[in-house]
């Protein structure tokens, strides 16, 4: 394995960021091209990775494309990256979005130099989170993301952007603070920072020093803030709403997936027993998130805010899928993370387009745009239908797997009831998605929007790509599930399931 794929994928955007930030007198166009190049290569590589990934059953639980070298001997930390079935899809997702958001931001003309620098730095950090197998490295990447996001929201955002940005930072830091404590406890109880080792070694000795449940929840809260889980969710609507389009896309598309990923990677894999013990409560939280999120979404009148709230509900499915601790449900949860990433990413992208072109974001003021901007309307509808879990979109495949998995879970008593309640969520979802669609695109054609322009070719490109991904995964999910299950099966063996 000569070529260090992952390192390249992770750090190319960083290199790009540095170049963009410090190269003297760059013209805006070059900045954008530079950004495009330095995100396109990682995307291409990640797709290459995806193709090269060993899907044979023998590869179950194997870390592939692993790179490991000593980093901080003093605390026995390593630069240790690698992907397995669990992280690979998310890496691909982020790399994909990473490139597309550059296209999405093509029209940014306010301080582009800083903008794209931050954007690329952000991509590096998220990719790093998904790739790193060393707790310290993981946490390092996890924290790096905060600052770029802060700037993206507070400078290029809209509305109460500074408030939202600060809120985002404080919330995230709060979560990661507890997470840090958890990681530290994990470190000194096991003496290791390697996720692989800890997972393999189990936590026999932890018992003696401190209750694993404490560590589990310290970590869990950290991830719960990101995911987000009601009632730790209130940063999300503000941040998503006030962030610039690209910011929202990354936030919803990849960033909040770090939470779900962390839960599977750390909480479940390292503490199977604790997860089992507390599954019921966590599942209850999941159902609450689903229904509560959906209900509140139904009340939103701001285009982006509505989409933002819908994320809460959709991430509830992820939580459900994770903590019913079934193989199918976990696969479903991972798939849901991917599919939500693509779908909501697209939704935000198109919503941003609508707002940019029509100059209006209040659903009560919008209407009839399907006549003026048919292409955007079609794409928006496809994304929306994906969000409401229509078959042949990835959303359906993912949610269905979650449902099947959780319904037949053996861990949580009375899980059927929970599941049914969660399923009820899709009805409400249909409600608000269609309501949004009809408010924006249907109804009498309004004079004031006559000048509104439809998507240009650049925008068509990323729309088409995302739509294609949605449909592909929806029609033939095996393309992902075959990979994901390889990452999940070892966890199942840990769970003794």
């Amino acid at each position: 394995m000569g070529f260090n794929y992952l390192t390249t994928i992770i750090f190319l955007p960083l290199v790009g960021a540095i170049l963009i930030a410090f190269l003297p007198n760059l013209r805006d166009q070059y900045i954008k091209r530079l950004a495009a190049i330095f995100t396109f290569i990682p995307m291409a590589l990640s797709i290459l990775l995806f193709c090269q990934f060993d899907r044979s059953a023998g590869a179950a639980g194997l870390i592939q494309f692993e790179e490991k070298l000593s980093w901080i001997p003093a605390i026995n930390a390593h630069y240790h990256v690698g992907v397995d079935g669990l992280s690979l899809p998310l890496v691909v997702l982020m790399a994909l979005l990473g490139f597309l958001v550059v296209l999405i931001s093509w029209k940014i003309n306010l301080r582009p130099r800083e903008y794209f620098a931050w954007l690329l730095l952000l991509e590096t950090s998220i990719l790093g989170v998904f790739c790193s197998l060393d707790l310290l490295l993981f946490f390092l990447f996890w924290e790096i993301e905060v600052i770029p996001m802060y700037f993206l929201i507070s400078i290029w955002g809209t509305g109460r952007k500074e408030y939202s940005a600060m809120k985002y930072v404080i919330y995230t830091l709060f979560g990661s603070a507890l997470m840090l404590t958890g990681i530290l406890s994990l470190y000194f109880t096991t003496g290791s920072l390697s996720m692989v080792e800890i997972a393999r070694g189990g936590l026999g000795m932890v018992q003696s020093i401190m209750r694993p449940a404490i560590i589990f929840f310290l970590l869990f809260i950290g991830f719960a803030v990101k995911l987000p889980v009601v009632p730790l969710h209130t940063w999300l609507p503000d941040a998503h709403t006030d962030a610039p389009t690209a910011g929202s896309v990354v936030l919803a598309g990849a960033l909040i997936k770090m939470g779900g990923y962390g839960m599977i990677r750390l909480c479940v894999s390292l503490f199977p027993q604790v997860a089992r013990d507390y599954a019921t409560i966590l599942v209850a939280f999941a159902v609450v998130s689903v229904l509560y999120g959906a209900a509140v979404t139904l009340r939103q009148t701001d285009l982006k805010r509505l989409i933002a709230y819908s994320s809460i509900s959709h991430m509830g499915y992820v939580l459900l899928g994770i903590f019913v601790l079934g193989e199918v449900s976990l696969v479903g949860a991972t798939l849901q993370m991917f599919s939500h990433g693509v779908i909501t990413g697209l939704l935000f992208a198109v919503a941003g387009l609508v707002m940019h072109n029509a100059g209006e974001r209040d659903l009560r003021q919008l209407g009839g745009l399907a006549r003026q901007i048919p292409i955007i309307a079609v794409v928006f509808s496809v994304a929306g239908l994906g969000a409401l879990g229509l078959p042949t979109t990835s959303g359906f495949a993912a949610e269905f797997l979650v449902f099947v998995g959780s319904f037949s879970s053996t861990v949580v008593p009375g899980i059927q009831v929970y599941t049914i309640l969660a399923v009820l969520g899709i009805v409400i979802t249909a409600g608000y998605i269609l309501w949004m669609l009809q408010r924006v695109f249907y109804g009498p054609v309004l004079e004031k929007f006559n000048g509104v322009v439809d998507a240009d070719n650049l925008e068509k490109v990323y729309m088409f790509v995302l739509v294609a991904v949605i449909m592909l995964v929806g029609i033939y999910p095996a393309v992902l599930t075959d990979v994901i299950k390889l990452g999940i099966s070892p966890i199942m063996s840990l769970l003794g399931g």
Partner: protein
Amino acid sequence: MPHQLIWLILLLPLLSFVITSLFIRPFLSHSPKLSGYITIASICGSLILSVWALLEVLAAPNHELPIPDISWVIIEGGVTIHLGLIMDSLTAVMLIVVTVVSLMVQVYSQGYMHGDPGYHRYFAFMSLFTGSMLGLVLADNLLFLYVFWELVGLCSYLLIGFWFHKPAARNAATKAFVVTRLGDFGFLAAILSLYFNAGTFDIAELHSLAIAGTLGGAVLTWAAIGIFSGAVGKSAQFPLHVWLPDAMEGPTPVSALIHAATMVAAGVFLVARTYPLFAHSVEAVTTVAIIGGFTAIFAASMGLVMTDIKRVLAYSTISQLGYMMLGLATGGVAIGIFHLFNHAFFKALLFLGAGSVNHATGTFDMHQMGGLRKVMPWTYATFVIASLSIAGIWPLSGFWSKDEILASSLGAQPVLFVLAMLTVFMTAFYMFRVVFLTFGGDYRGEGKPHESASVMVVPMVILAILAVVSGFWNVTGGFSQLFGHGETQSFARGFFGILAHPLPWISLILAGLGILLAYAMYSAKWLSAESLGRLFSPLYTLFYRKYWFDELYERLFVGKALINGFFAGLQQFDNNGVDGAVNGIANATIAGGRAIRRVQTGQLQLYGLFIGIGILAIVLCVYLVG
């Protein structure tokens, strides 16, 4: 020919969808007709294949053709989901229904949609729908079926909202989708629980398990009821019937195809498809019967008073679907499906007729019509045939299937039988009310109506023929035979022998009375509709306001209770409760900072004092603790 070809039946229309939407619409929009032709061609292909399939099935020993599966998702130790087709008599019949009606409608649409800006879109959706509908009837496992189930729902949504700039249309579309989704929720839950208990999505396996009894008791009942709730949603049965009348906002051919002949019948089909599950649960089957019977008369009652021709037809559809449910529940698959089979043709025909009328007069309000029989004879003739057929007049197709349903319901549920009989009367009445108001008397609207173009008339004629003859299939008992029960008899014997029984006569008489009443009120004007309306004014308003169900659901339930009530509360809680707490903590910290900094007065001796106090505090703590 290899049986894999059957995949083509559903793939052809989907293909035409892809072609029209991805290539023709963007690149060849200047030649609108093209997409129509492609659609028709593809459906023709499906039709031919369907006929071939039907013949194959008829030939096959147990009326079933094996078709290899395709694996969709496999998670070892988890789920294994295959996609496969089932090709049995039920499917075969449904295929014929769908393809034939669809084809007719497409041809008709050539004329009806002529010059509409959304011409491409229309045919794209239409072929998508046809493909999905065919997939729905072909699917061999519940998941796959559910996929197409949702897709047809989507198409219905898209086509109802086809004229999206009409607020009524867009609301109707959303309403239709959400209401059916509500039913689908039950369906999905049922699928999950079935998978949980039986470990499979495959319908055949489920059947065998149900028959073997390994799958039974409450589980089976609930699963069956869950499935039925899906059917209730799609087939607009009570209490989820409210969406169908509004759905009439879509183009009329759409109503003919989707909201009369095929999609709404999918509910009936679903129940038939999973019939063994129902058969082994008394509760389930009774529920179906009661809902069906009640819906039949309930809907009919509203059909009596509507002035919008399409809405009358819509209610009649609901009522007829109720019949089918009733037939399924009481008489088994064959009877229910047979009515579905016949109904598809004459109801489609009725809608096409309505469409043709509307095309001529530009309205659906029957008060704006009248006297059209002179100007549009073809439409008139076919419409009357269809009306007679739906009214169940011997020997038209409606008679045969309806008769069987009545017979079986008499055997099973006398009460329901009575309701059904009343419905027969009502049906005859409102249908001929339409006939007389529309075609009888003199023209009340403005403009000069004229007969529609032949491209629209021909399909109607074909359907009219079918509406007459389709019923004959089971005169010999051949249809039931196909479903493996009933014995065959000579055509002549069945054709006339039926009249030897009393039951048909009762229904015929009731129907006749209905027609007579309609004639009396709306043609001969022996008694005035108004006075009658005044006479039964409470009843009239009750019917006319649709039992206030729309108000109940939309205003009260969804509007007040949920969205503006509970959800609004949640939102308040979210903003003030949860988020308020968050901000509260933040502000508290800041306030704390402001407060504490006051201690730093700049008095150096105060600082010194703190040093002293600090020392003392520490020492005392240590002494007292230690």
